[in-house]
C-alpha cells in the first residue's frame, strides 16, 4: 500500500500547473463568458497538447487507455486555473465511446476527443437537462433514459449560468441515432461516474485557488493597524477551509482508484462542499472588493456553486453513498 501519487503522476499535474500559470486564463474566461471562444480555444490547444484528454480514451484510438488517477490530477489543475469550457464533458464523452466499444463510432469520434481538438458536450441520464457550452463544442451527444445515444442536431439558445463562463443550452431532440440498448446505458453510467469524479477534481482545484488567494489577501489587507490575517476569527475561518480541502483530497484519490459509485459520490460531495465553503470564506474575508466582478477572484467565486451541483448535487451524492452502503 502506498497511498500517495507517484512521481509520474505528480510530474504530470505539475507540468499542467506550470503551463496554465503561464497562460492568461482570466482573460480567456472573461472572453468565453462574453461569447468569444477564441482565446479559450487557444488555451485548450495548449493544455490538450499535454495529452490530458488522451487519458480518457483507449490506445487503439489515439488515447492512453483509461487513466482516472492521472486525469483527476490534471482536472485539479484545470480547476485551480479556472479554465473555461466543457472539459469534463469532453472527457466523459471519450469515456462513453471507449466503454461502448463500437469500433466505427470509436474511430469516428475518439481521435478528435483524445486530442482535445473536437470538444464535446453531452447530457446523460441522471445528469441535468442542460448541455454545457453547446455553442463552443464540436459535438453534442445525448443519451436518453431508454439508452439511445444520439448526435443532437443543435441546441436551444445558450442561457447564462451564475458563472458567466458556463453557458447552458437544452439539446434539440432527434438527430442521428448512433447506438442504442443496454450497452449504451452501461457506458453512459460509467461516463456519468467519470463526469462526477472529474467535477470533484475541478472543485478541489477551485477551492485551493480560492483559499490561496484569500490567504494572500489576508496577509496584505490591514485594518485597525494590523494585517487581518493576524485576527483569530479570520485565521480560524481559513483553517477550517484548509481542513475541508485536505480531507477531500484523499477521497478524490480513492474514488479515482476504484471508480466505485459510492466512493465517487463521497469525493464529489466533499470536494464540492469544501470548494463552496472556500468561496464563502473568500467572499467574506475579501469584504466588499470580493463582491465585485472586476476582481479576478470572481472567476472562481462564481464557479464554486455550479461545480458543487453539476453532475451530482450534495443531496444526490449523499443518497448515492447511503445506497451503496445499504446495498
Amino acid at each position, binding site marked *: *500500500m*502506498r*497511498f*500517495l*501519487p*507517484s512521481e509520474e*503522476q505528480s510530474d504530470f499535474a505539475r507540468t499542467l500547473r506550470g503551463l496554465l500559470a503561464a497562460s492568461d486564463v482570466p482573460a480567456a474566461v472573461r472572453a468565453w463568458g462574453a461569447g468569444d471562444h477564441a482565446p479559450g480555444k487557444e488555451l485548450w490547444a495548449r493544455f490538450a497538447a499535454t495529452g490530458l484528454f488522451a487519458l480518457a480514451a483507449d490506445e487503439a484510438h489515439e488515447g492512453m487507455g483509461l487513466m482516472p*488517477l492521472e486525469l483527476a490530477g490534471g482536472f485539479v489543475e484545470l480547476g485551480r486555473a479556472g479554465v473555461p469550457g466543457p472539459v469534463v464533458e469532453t472527457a466523459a464523452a471519450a469515456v462513453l465511446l471507449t466503454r461502448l466499444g463500437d469500433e466505427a463510432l470509436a474511430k469516428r469520434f475518439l481521435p478528435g476527443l483524445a486530442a482535445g481538438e473536437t470538444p464535446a458536450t453531452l447530457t446523460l441520464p441522471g445528469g441535468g437537462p442542460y448541455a454545457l457550452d453547446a455553442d463552443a463544442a464540436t459535438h453534442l451527444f445525448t443519451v436518453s433514459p431508454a439508452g439511445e445515444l444520439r448526435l443532437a442536431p443543435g441546441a436551444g439558445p445558450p442561457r447564462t449560468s451564475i458563472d458567466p463562463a458556463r453557458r447552458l443550452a437544452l439539446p434539440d431532440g432527434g438527430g442521428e441515432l448512433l447506438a442504442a440498448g443496454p450497452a449504451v446505458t452501461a457506458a453512459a453510467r460509467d461516463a456519468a461516474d467519470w463526469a462526477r469524479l472529474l467535477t470533484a477534481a475541478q472543485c478541489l482545484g477551485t477551492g485551493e485557488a480560492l*483559499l490561496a488567494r484569500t*490567504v494572500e489577501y*489576508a*496577509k496584505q489587507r490591514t485594518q485597525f493597524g*494590523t*494585517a487581518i*490575517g*493576524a*485576527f*483569530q476569527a*479570520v*485565521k*480560524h475561518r*481559513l*483553517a*477550517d477551509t*484548509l*481542513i475541508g480541502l*485536505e*480531507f*477531500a*483530497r*484523499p*477521497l478524490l*484519490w*480513492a474514488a479515482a*482508484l*476504484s471508480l466505485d459509485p459510492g*466512493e465517487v459520490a*463521497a469525493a464529489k*460531495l*466533499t470536494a464540492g462542499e469544501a470548494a463552496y465553503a472556500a468561496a464563502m470564506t473568500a467572499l467574506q474575508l475579501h469584504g466588499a472588493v470580493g463582491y465585485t466582478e472586476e476582481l479576478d477572484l470572481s472567476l472562481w467565486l462564481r464557479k464554486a456553486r455550479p461545480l458543487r451541483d453539476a453532475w451530482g448535487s*450534495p*443531496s444526490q451524492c*449523499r*443518497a448515492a*453513498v*447511503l445506497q451503496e*452502503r*445499504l446495498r
Partner: protein
Amino acid sequence: MDLNHSADVEAFRAEARDWLAAHVPATPLPSLETREGFAAHREWEALLHSARWAVVSWPEEYGGRGVDIEHWLVFEEEYWAAGAPGRVSQNGINLLAPTLFDHATGEQRARVLPSMASGRTIWAQAWSEPESGSDLASLTSRAVRTEGGWLLSGQKTWSSRAAFADRAFGIFRTDPDAPKPHQGLTYLMFDLRAPGVTVRPIGRLDGKPAFAELFLDEVFVPDADVIGEPGQGWRIAMSTTGNERGLTLRAPGRFLAAADRLVDLWHNLGNPADTALRDRVADAVVGARAYQLFTWANASRFAAGETIGAESSLNKVFWSRYDIALHESALDLLGPDAELADGEWAEPWIFSLAGPIYAGTNEIQRDIIAERLLGLPKGRR
C-alpha cells in the same frame, strides 16, 4: 498509488480478527470510568497482552510485535469492528510510550514499558493545571532539587484516568528564573500513591470520575524517573502531544466502526422520509472514510521518510468535530430513548464532547494551522 495491503498485512488482519472474535467479551464491560469498570478493563488489557495484541507496534522485547503503522491501522480497524472494549491503558500507550521510545534511557524503557503493556501499571497524564490549560507553558507546579531526585509541589487538574490509575507523567517547573515560560521545565514520572499525593476525583458531565485533581506536597521522584535532560521538558512534551493529536489517539478504525453502527441504527430506526437525518448518516459514512484515507496518506508519508508536524492539527480538529456530529445523529435517530443515560450511545456522546477541548483546544489547533500551514501572521491569542 494503491490501497491494497500485502498478503502479510492481510494475514495479520485475519489473525487479529480470529483472536478478537474468540475473546471480545459478549457483554460490554462496565464503563472504564468507574472503579469496577477500571478493574475489568485492566483484566482485558492483561488478556490482550497475553496474546501480544496490546501494543502491536512496539518492539517484541517490550511485548509488541514490531509491526509498522500499516499493520497497526489494520489492527485498529479489526479491534473496533469487533466491538472490543475501550483501552484503559491508552494514556500510557499513546502518550508516554512514544516519549519513552524517543527520549528515555534503556533502563527506563525496560522498567516502565512491560508493565504498561500488560495493564499492571495504568498511567494517567498530568499536564493541565487550574490556570494552565491551553497556555500550558504558564504552569507553576514545581520540582525542586533534593538528594537523589526532585520534590514535586503544586496542583494538576483534568488528569485523565487519575482517579484509579497507578502512576502519572507530566512536566514541572524546575527553573523558575528561566527567561521564557516554556524553558526550565522538566518531564518526569511519579507514583500516584506516593506520600504527599492527594487524588481528588472529578466527575465529568455524566458524573463519572474520568479525571482527577492532583495535589502534590513535596512528593519525592528519584532521578531515574526524569525523562530526558532537566529543563528540556517542553520540547519533549510537545513531541508527545503531536502524537496525541495525530494518528495514535483516534485510530480511524474507531470511527469506521461507529459509522457502521450508525448505518445499522438508520436501517433499523430511520424514517425514509427524514432525508435531513439520512444526509447526516451519509456524512458520517463519508467522514469516517475521509479520515481513514487521510490517515493512510499520512502513513504513506511516514513510510516514505517524511515527518508529520503541524499537519496533525488538521486531524485533531477533524476527528473531534466528526465524533460529535456522528453521536448527535445517533441520538436524533433514537428519539425519546436518546435521553436514557444507560443507552448505548449516551456515554460515547458524553465522551465525544470533550474532543474539541482536550489535546489542545480546537481554537489553538486552528491557530497552529493558520500560522504554520497557511503562513498567516502571529497574533494575540
